[in-house]
């Protein structure tokens, strides 16, 4: 086996091995467990980066690395391709950062073995989703992710957590059933479906079976739309904010929700390809995404709970990616793929911050953040950078996404998207600026000045360093958007292949 295959298998297997080790070590052996966790996450990060390297090497002639197990006539297959590498790197690298954060964040919480074990399974599932070679493998990991997330949502065991978990399952399980039906139906109709840039449907199928293909598409979108939080399937995401901060950060801003949008990208670009537009499926999807953008932003405005505001912001931002994919012009696709990485770095920073704030000063609401910038300036600076990035203020990464999306939309002849972008940007600003304003320009809450620990006090370094790093990453992705191997350039490369 050459290095590329080893890296591919390691990327998928290491998180699961880490999970097994964590479960085996049990609750009591904290140090050993943390060590295993960090080592596993670091190894995974290296492996996904190696996967990306192999994908880049094979960018012209197809992926270098593939592997699989036969089952029935489909089998489980993996490969490190250009599109998958984006999501794999995002999930794998951010896992390492999140692990460090979470070890500190959860240090006083009970049931940590269970927490970190399932967390690892979630990351492994996300990486599996990223590196799946075919729709079946994708589906297998997608459902694993569904289940493995549940114990994390209900982790605290409070009635609110259990309610959030129930809501989550009420959405996710029927969605899984719809997805299963769609996947099997497509398999019956089109045979084994591998992901191929430019579409994988047999020639002429769209002409002979348009109704069935449309129905399958609808089922697939129903199944994927829940995790992608497309309106009206988004309701679980704000409810799931009862989960601990590391879960909200990595899973509900990155791994889980982006598994949904990534799946939509796979299906639209690498299964249906041009047939999606031929069958008239992309315009409704784009319209739905556009509506979700506006809808999510408006709902975010009304939230006082900080995590809920962030959650609705995520609902809106995810649809940028869907919109880009659905518009299907090279630049728009590039915008979507790039935003997958951009939004990940920016939003995880904000959730990290929300966790720190809740943990350190007990503030859960936007209205409780007055003057926080003076108490924890580093943390709030990172938050502000990320917020400005998402609003789309240059040079942070969000601007690059929006720019690409706008031009891509114009290429695709969808000028109305520009209006959506403008409205969204205004709304983004409207729900983030007040937070920034309160943090920096309002007087601090009185008890912070008089309490036992007055004045400036950052949180544990193991929490602050990760959020600073992710904020810097978000900044760098924007500043260096034109550099080789930046997410934006990478995305452009993928987009050109997809649109061929």
């Amino acid at each position, binding site marked *: 086996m050459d290095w590329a295959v080893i890296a591919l298998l390691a990327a998928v297997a290491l998180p699961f091995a880490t999970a097994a080790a964590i*479960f085996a070590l049990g609750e009591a052996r904290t140090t050993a467990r943390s060590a295993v966790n960090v080592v596993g996450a670091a190894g995974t990060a290296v492996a996904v980066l190696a996967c990306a390297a192999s994908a880049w090497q094979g960018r012209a002639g197809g992926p270098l690395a593939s592997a699989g*197990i*036969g*089952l*029935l006539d489909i089998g*489980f297959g993996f490969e490190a391709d250009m599109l998958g590498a984006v999501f794999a790197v995002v999930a794998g690298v951010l896992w390492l950062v999140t692990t460090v954060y979470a070890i500190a964040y959860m240090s006083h919480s*009970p*049931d940590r073995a*269970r927490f970190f074990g399932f967390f690892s399974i979630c990351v492994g599932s996300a990486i599996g989703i990223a590196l799946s070679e075919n729709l079946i493998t994708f*589906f*297998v990991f997608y*459902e*694993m992710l*569904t*289940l493995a997330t549940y*114990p994390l949502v*209900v*982790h*605290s*065991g*409070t*009635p609110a*957590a*259990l309610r959030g*978990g*129930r809501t989550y*399952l009420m959405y996710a*399980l*029927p969605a*899984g*059933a719809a997805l*299963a*039906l769609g996947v*099997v*139906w497509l*398999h*019956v109709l089109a045979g084994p479906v591998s992901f191929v840039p430019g579409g994988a449907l047999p020639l002429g199928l769209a002409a002979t079976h348009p109704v069935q293909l449309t129905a399958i598409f609808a089922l697939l979108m129903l199944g994927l739309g829940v995790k992608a939080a497309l309106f009206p399937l988004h309701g679980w995401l704000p409810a799931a904010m009862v989960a601990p901060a590391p879960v909200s950060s990595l899973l509900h801003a990155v791994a889980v929700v982006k598994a949904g949008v990534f799946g939509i990208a796979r299906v639209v670009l690498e299964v249906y390809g041009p047939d999606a537009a031929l069958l008239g499926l992309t315009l409704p999807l784009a319209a739905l995404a556009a509506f979700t953008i506006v809808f999510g932003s408006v709902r975010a405005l009304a939230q006082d709970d900080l995590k809920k505001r962030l959650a609705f912001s995520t609902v809106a931002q995810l649809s940028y990616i869907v919109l880009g994919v659905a518009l299907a012009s090279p630049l728009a696709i590039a915008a979507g793929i790039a935003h997958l990485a951009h939004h990940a770095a920016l939003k995880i920073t904000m959730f990290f911050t929300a966790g720190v704030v809740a943990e350190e000063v007990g503030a859960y609401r936007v209205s409780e953040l007055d003057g926080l910038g003076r108490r924890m300036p580093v943390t709030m600076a990172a938050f502000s950078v990320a917020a400005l990035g998402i609003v789309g203020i240059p040079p942070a990464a969000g601007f690059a996404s929006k720019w690409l999306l706008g031009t891509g939309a114009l290429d695709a002849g969808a000028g109305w998207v520009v209006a959506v972008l403008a409205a969204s940007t205004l709304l983004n600003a409207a729900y983030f600026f007040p937070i920034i304003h309160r943090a920096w320009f309002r007087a601090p809450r009185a008890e912070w000045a008089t309490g036992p620990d007055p004045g400036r006090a950052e949180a544990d370094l193991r929490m602050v360093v990760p959020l600073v790093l992710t904020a810097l990453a978000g900044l760098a992705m924007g500043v260096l958007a034109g550099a080789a191997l930046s997410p934006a350039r990478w995305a452009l490369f993928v987009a050109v292949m997809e649109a061929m």
Partner: protein
Amino acid sequence: MAEALLAHMPALAVVVPLVAAPIAFLAGARWGRPVALVASALSVPVAFALAWLVSAEGEKLRYQIGGWEAPLGIGLVVDGLSATMLLVTAVVGFAVTVYSLGYFADKERYRFFWALWLFLLASMAALFLSADVFNLYVCLELVSVSAVALVGLSGQRDALVAAMRYMLAAILGSIFYLLGVALLYGAFGVLDLAHLAAVLGPDVTGQAAFALITVGLVLKTALFPAHFWLPPAHANAPSPVSAVLSALVVKGSFYILLRLWTDVGDPSYVPGMGTLLGVLGAMAIVWGSVQALLQERLKMLVAYSTVAQIGYLFLLFPLVEIAGSHVVDAWSAGVFHAVSHALAKSAMFLAAGAVLSRFGHDRIDGLGGLSRRAPVTTMAFGLSGITMMGLPPSGGFVVKWLYITAAIESGAWWWAIVVLAGGLLAAGYVARVVVPGFAKARDDASDLDVDAGRLPRRMEFAALALALAALALGVLGQPVLDLMAVGSPASGVIPWTGQ
């Protein structure tokens, strides 16, 4: 020598536990335990050897007892189907034996367990190998009497009444079956399955015989609406027994149905029968799941889950009838379900039994915080729940996949809806158990005794091992699919029509 041993493997599969049973009876309360452990451990390599033989041969093997050729003598037949079922019996049997060594700590009270248990294992092996319709009747009686005796073993009131109900249903089923055998012999003059397949024709007596046999076996398999005896029997039996009843015993009578309707005849032999069985299966899925959602006791919930999961087995018949080129998928789905459900359901019952014997009760609303108190057991239950729901990666998912494929391919998409709806309902009843397990332990929400001692590890890990095996089937299931396809009707030829 090794060659001779291999040639006798089919007989050994029956003889090993059958010889051990009276020995365990003679050996008494104390020494019956090692006898059972050795015999059930030996059955595992024997089953693997048979599976290997069949795979290597690529076709059915026959073993003629007494050296008398069929139709005069009785044959044992080993094809992919019987080898698969034997393998599951051996693996589940061994795991349950290990579990039982911990469970029946009160040696004197359960001194007859080991002999009855070995008789059950022997009779299951005999049933899965028999190639003779009358011999199958004797096997069925062996299975029923040993299973009922195991249900009633505890001597508690509910168990005794459940055993009686089970006994009456089982004897009634046997009588129906035997009447069918009489008519088959009357119509065709042979008892051997292969000879029967060769001479089976559209004959009123033959059709009536098939119908009667089906009624009898449906009763024994507890297909809705003949499931009335199952939940009390499976819920009130000692937990290792519950595990084997749900995992293997109901599959025994289903296996004979499968042989008759897909190997000897095909579902169109009696018009409408395939659809009828499928519809009853669908009703079983819905009814069993809804009842499981309403139960107050964990073991009752698991037992009703069995009622529901039995329904999936019977979806095979209409789909085999109509699935055309995808008949392989439909047939494999049913058999694979028998396998994966056997592993997962035995894991569930063993987990439930671990809860019951550790905390002294199995009321569902008193299981708050279970995942903290008994993490391995909760994990075993949750993982086997994944197979019940048919979610990947699990054997249940492969079943779902194959059924939906067959349903869509044959244009009978409503069966796909049934399969998917059943999965969601299963998620509902599994969640009823697993979800409170995550609840914060509050004194008023949990009846779990904090001071309850630890269980023997082998009990918890026997359950976990079976649950993991069910899960592994979803990824590494191809060898099992290959094995069960050897010499199966799924290879495309329906014998009696010669198509």
